[in-house]
């Protein structure tokens, strides 16, 4: 149960619905696709500010989607960061 309300894609309307449609239509490596087939939780976590969501993930797509670091190297950096911050998501 989240500590704050979240609005998943199936419950979204207006701007949030449009933002989700764009986010979910972007190509995604298969290993990143959630088992439930919907938007990743970290995207849904931003749903209370539909204007913020595409800004964060626009930056993220640029930084986490290409080099110069290779994919394994990016995953290493991301995992080190998350482990230090004790974020197990």
């Amino acid at each position, binding site marked *: 149960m989240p500590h704050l309300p979240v609005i998943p894609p199936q419950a979204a309307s207006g701007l949030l619905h449009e933002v989700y449609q764009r986010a979910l239509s972007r190509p995604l490596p298969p290993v990143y696709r959630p088992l439930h087939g919907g938007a990743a939780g970290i995207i849904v976590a931003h749903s209370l500010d539909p*204007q*913020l969501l595409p800004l964060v993930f626009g*930056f993220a797509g640029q930084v986490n989607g290409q080099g110069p670091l290779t994919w394994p190297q*990016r995953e290493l950096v991301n995992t080190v960061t998350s482990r230090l911050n004790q974020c197990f*998501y």
Partner: protein
Amino acid sequence: MADPRALAERAPDLLVRALARLACRVTEAPWALDAAELAAARAAALSDEAIVHVVLLAALFGHFNRMADAVGIELDYGVRLTPPHAEPATPAYLKPAPADWPLPTAGDGAEDSIRVGLRAAALPLLEPWQAHVWGQGPLAPHQRSLIRRTVAECLGDGATVQALDVAPASPLDAALVATADEVARAPWRLGAGTVARLRSAGLSDDVEIFDAIATASSCTTFSRIRVALAALNRRD
């Protein structure tokens, strides 16, 4: 990955060690980066562009970590091992003394400094995110400034601290400062208690509570990048 610091100190592969070391430093104490760290990263065959990439990734994932835990989202993927729980008793990240805040440099591309103008494709995408967080939202302007300033102090972002002459003037302001400090320095403590504290202080609207947390978290990304790159450019 049980112990990222062990990876940073003892990984047999020099490049893995360098990547882990940089990520640790950017995450725990970006103000402590210096010319020696830059030289060590370059000696491990990391280009300046790769070094900046590490900074941007660690700062971005720092935001993701904070948002995931503050909002309380569940895992999206199957896991074979049971993930460990966060330990709230873990001491907070250190806060730098003002004397340790790195000064922003011109980034003029001198031979011994990292060229911050690299990653040109990514940095312009940071600006709209920053403009939104700094300028808009349900919280009042002075509340956003309080959050920004608190996070900047936690990370040694002197330019932002000096630009924001604001102090808490109410119990709600004090709660926002406490929340911003927790977001910046102890993300493993974020959760239901964070939300409850803001509700008790007077924020009853979930969108306002989200705004406070997301503003603080976003500002950790902005200040972390600024401080890390300024520290790597330091010439003392």
